[in-house]
């Protein structure tokens, strides 16, 4: 892996995003609008908003980043630039980490904006520290990027890539413990939920909601999500082939 080539890739992806202000606006604004809508929906039940708000703060950026990353990297494949890059001295991790860093920057801005909106304007009330809330939201958005990078290897067209959103994201949403606490699900479903990274992000968020102190469990949850990011990138690199049929 070469830092210079990784940085060049990050710069290039950022330049591409800058040329596409509509996408950037959607990336940053859509989660904000959704969270605002959430607050309006629970207008009469502020306690419910305080309970599920943090979890959805983890979910919305995750979904948006997953979609954008998977489609963008697939475009690299269909435009022939991926084949060209892989015939050059670019490491597979240079490419993936370069992408992740560029979208990670977007994720940081997005999660910071969304957190500021929630804690400020929408008056979300959490017991734990605000910085930890932002950190979990950022890490979760980066997880969305990493998973998007990974699954784009299995899509041939952008149409297929979009289908991965419901396939990969919605089961994690259903099983993450937001709709029904995970220990109240059947044993099989609970076991599956332990294998899904979004569960840990939501767990961390729910703990921040009620615990004033930073508990070891919350940090462990965060570590699992970071581990899932590393694993996704490693799998993404493993599925990236220099030779294709």
């Amino acid at each position, binding site marked *: 892996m070469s830092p*210079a*080539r990784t940085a*060049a*890739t990050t*710069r*290039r992806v950022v*330049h*591409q995003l800058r*040329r*596409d202000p509509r996408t950037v606006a959607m990336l940053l604004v859509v989660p904000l609008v959704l969270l605002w809508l959430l607050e309006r929906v629970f207008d009469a039940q502020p306690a419910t908003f305080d309970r599920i708000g943090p979890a959805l703060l983890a979910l919305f950026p995750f979904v948006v980043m997953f979609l954008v990353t998977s489609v963008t990297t697939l475009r690299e494949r269909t*435009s*022939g*630039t991926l*084949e*060209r*890059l*892989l*015939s*050059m*001295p*670019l490491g597979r991790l240079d490419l993936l980490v370069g992408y992740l860093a560029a979208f990670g920057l977007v994720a940081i801005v997005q999660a910071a904006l969304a957190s500021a909106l929630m804690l400020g304007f929408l008056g979300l009330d959490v017991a734990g520290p605000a910085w930890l809330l932002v950190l979990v939201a950022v890490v979760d958005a980066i997880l969305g990027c990493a998973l998007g990078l990974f699954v784009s290897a299995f899509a041939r067209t952008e149409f297929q890539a979009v289908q991965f959103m419901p396939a990969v994201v919605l089961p994690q949403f259903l099983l993450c413990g937001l709709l029904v606490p995970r220990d109240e699900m059947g044993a099989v479903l609970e076991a599956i939920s332990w294998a899904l990274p979004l569960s840990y992000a939501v767990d961390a968020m729910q703990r921040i909601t009620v615990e004033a102190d930073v508990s070891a469990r919350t940090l462990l949850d965060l570590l699992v999500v970071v581990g899932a990011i590393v694993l996704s990138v490693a799998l993404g690199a493993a599925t990236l082939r*220099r*030779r*294709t*049929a």
Partner: protein
Amino acid sequence: MTEGATAVEIDGLRVVRGGRVVLDDLSLRLPAGRVTGLLGPSGSGKSTLLRSIVGVQVVERGTVRVLGLDAGSASLRTRVAYATQAASVYDDLGVEENLRYFAAVLGAPPGDIERVLAEVDLADQAVRPVRDLSGGQRSRVSLAVALLGVPELLVLDEPTVGLDPVLRADLWGLFRRLADAGRTLLVSSHVMDEATRCHELILMRDGAILAQLTPEALLARTGARDAEVAFLTLVRGSRAAAG
């Protein structure tokens, strides 16, 4: 590279794509320091052969040696340049932004960008987004990427398609100059009249090599006026031999 050296050696190459045998038992020697034209109708396996040489094609059988190494070896990645048939550049970036990125990946010196822009006659389009360019201009951006650095072997898949005659003549002039400087070029085309611009020709049809010879020898052997007629004569000859 010395005169008479071999840049590419292929023996018994077999490639299957999508269940179809594209190349079968193909063998070939490519002379170094020359412009070799790879000519044949579309669907004859030219692109697959080029991909095999670059090392991005899954090969079922056979050996492909490039500059003395196995095709696709890590150390060949700066020594072999490749431009695919479809312009493989970023549509949403500017011409210069594209080149800057690929130059960084290749570790090419910064001055290279200006040089290759001049070589493909796009210096005045440097800041325009590739998306806004014409088809011919886009493929020249893609070609410019292949000219970055000092590749010893340039593999160019139909780089002159869709270009006007003046520009085509300029590019073939550039290819000859690169060869004079010791580089090896393998340039595919389905336009037969480009044959006369090459030092040497490889004529392909249905995944097999019909002939490898100089343009002069092609005309002499077939008694044809131009390369197009000569190619047809060769195809009929090979059919007659097979039948």
